[in-house]
């Protein structure tokens, strides 16, 4: 997010945006009113692109898991967005962007979204109205929430996942917002944090929740052989994986350029840096995987694209297009090694979410301190990066930032998952897991109820939905 107006008392002020209202249009220069509308419409459209990423996540996760769980993973992707948006609206947004509290470690602006029923109410962020800013931020909250379902796929109880989704968007993610984009302690340091569009704030938050979830759940049945070596459980639709990754790629042109929070001439630059980083990530991941395993794995190339995009998300406002290529390429390199690492230490992440979002999100956040040349409005200075003579000042802040985010997110989500595990239960029974979550959790298979019989109801199909077989 660029150029936050720290002087404006956050969302509680509900400052009236006179220039956005037709009634006031004659009182101000026409060009200014156009700019306000343009800013709001662009950020709205960027928010729509970010919501489109939900479709990308759903496809990637469905493709990388087995056909017997396809309905369940789609349902989790659907519901973490739906539940996440409402939880964020009721309390999350207020915790993220309300009045500063507890010395910048929390904030609060009352329940709901201040000013959202008034078309002219300002959010306090540049020219954006309350509704525009909330819409854009809600899309980000839904992104943080949905990252987790892939890492916990094929073995997590639906109701437990639904409950988790409410808590991450109501509390875990908003606290990170309060520390950062909301103007809290990390923004108040002598050398403030820099995370333009959320490598850590959004992606590592989702990634570290995914890590704790996968760790506490344990691996899928059959993932490790008797010798303890990881065994591949191939996903059921590689076409979905690539299609989903490309949908996410398109969505990222809302995620990063939209985080400018204005329609200006920086937006296209942000898009170009995002573009090249994603391409570099995909190519490097493919090459490394090719050398390492002998064949270029399709889904690892798709993971490489996402790794490059996650990595460029923090530094996108501060680095040159050349640096963006390097940052994305390193992301693609890291993700291949990271996926193998988590496989080896028996943290079973079917889609690579921990590596893509947690590990590469952290890399992207640290890369600001190496490559920053331009002031992204967080840094407050040019040439802040180590490679441009900025020394290590920014690196200390970025390290504190990623460390604090890890401790909060892993701690809070770890407690949450343990609490769920010891109350309503986190994992389905082994019988359910082997039969597939579609029938056991939701009552019908995702595919193929009618493929043998041509759609005629037959006894075999009907018995699959009898109460005796549902978990």
């Amino acid at each position, binding site marked *: 997010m660029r150029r936050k107006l720290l002087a404006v008392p956050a969302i509680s002020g509900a400052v009236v945006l006179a220039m956005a209202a037709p009634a006031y249009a004659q009182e101000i220069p026409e060009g200014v009113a156009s700019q306000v509308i343009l800013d709001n419409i662009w950020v709205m459209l960027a928010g729509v692109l970010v919501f489109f990423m939900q479709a990308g996540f759903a496809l990637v996760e469905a493709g990388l898991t087995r056909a017997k769980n396809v309905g369940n993973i789609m349902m989790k992707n659907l519901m973490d967005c739906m539940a996440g948006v409402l939880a964020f609206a009721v309390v999350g947004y207020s915790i993220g962007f309300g009045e500063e509290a507890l010395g910048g470690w929390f904030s609060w602006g009352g329940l709901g979204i201040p000013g959202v029923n008034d078309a002219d109410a300002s959010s306090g962020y540049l020219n954006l109205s309350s509704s525009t800013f909330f819409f854009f931020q809600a899309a980000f909250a839904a992104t943080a929430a949905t990252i987790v379902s892939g890492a916990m796929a094929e073995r997590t109880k639906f109701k437990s996942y639904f409950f988790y989704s409410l808590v991450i968007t109501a509390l875990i993610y908003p606290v990170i917002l309060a520390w950062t984009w909301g103007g809290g302690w990390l923004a108040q340091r002598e050398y403030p944090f820099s995370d333009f569009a959320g490598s850590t704030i959004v992606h590592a938050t989702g990634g570290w929740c995914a890590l704790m979830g996968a760790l506490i759940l344990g691996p899928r049945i059959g993932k490790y052989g008797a010798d303890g070596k990881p065994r591949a459980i*191939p996903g059921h639709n590689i076409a979905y994986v690539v299609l989903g990754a490309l949908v996410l790629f398109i969505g990222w042109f809302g995620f990063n350029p939209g985080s400018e929070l204005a329609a200006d001439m920086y937006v296209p630059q942000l898009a170009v840096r995002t573009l090249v980083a994603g391409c570099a990530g995909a190519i490097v991941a493919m090459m490394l995987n090719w050398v390492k395993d002998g064949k270029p794995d399709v889904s690892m190339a798709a993971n490489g694209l996402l790794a490059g995009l996650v990595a460029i998300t923090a530094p996108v406002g501060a680095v040159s297009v050349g640096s963006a290529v390097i940052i994305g390429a390193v992301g693609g390199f890291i993700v291949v090694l990271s996926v193998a690492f988590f*496989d080896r230490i028996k943290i079973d992440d079917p889609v690579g979410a921990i590596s893509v979002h947690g590990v590469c999100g952290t890399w992207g956040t640290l890369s600001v301190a190496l490559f920053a040349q331009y002031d992204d409005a967080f840094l407050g200075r040019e040439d802040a990066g180590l490679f441009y003579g900025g020394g290590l000042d920014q690196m200390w802040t970025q390290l504190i930032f990623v460390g604090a985010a890890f401790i909060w997110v892993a701690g809070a989500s770890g407690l949450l998952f343990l609490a769920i595990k010891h109350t309503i239960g986190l994992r389905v029974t082994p019988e359910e897991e082997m039969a597939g979550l579609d029938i056991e959790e939701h009552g019908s298979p995702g595919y193929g109820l009618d493929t043998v019989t041509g759609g005629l109801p037959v006894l075999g199909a009907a018995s699959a939905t009898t109460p005796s077989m549902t978990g």
Partner: protein
Amino acid sequence: MLSLVTAVIKPYMVEAVNEALKGAGVAGMTITEVKGFGRQGGHTETYRGAEYTVEFVPKVKVEVLVATEDADTIAGVIVAATQTGKIGDGKIWITPLAQATRIRTGEMGIDAV
């Protein structure tokens, strides 16, 4: 006397077998997608950096109902159409049958073929 010629072949050989059998005057056949392993066993692949073994290799099973005196000829036609000389070409076996019936007309025995 009737026999069932059963061939388990590479999936991409189905077209060649179909044409060869039609050329030999066979009036019908049934194919099924099956999986299995023979003397070559399964094989190992990698997925996302982890290895997995394909224990059962995809094959197609072709079944042709013929007069017993034609069975060896038909098996020879299938061999000629599918033989590459490489491991995994498949197998053919012939089973004597007790009876066969054409459902539409009720014809039995050789008339049902």
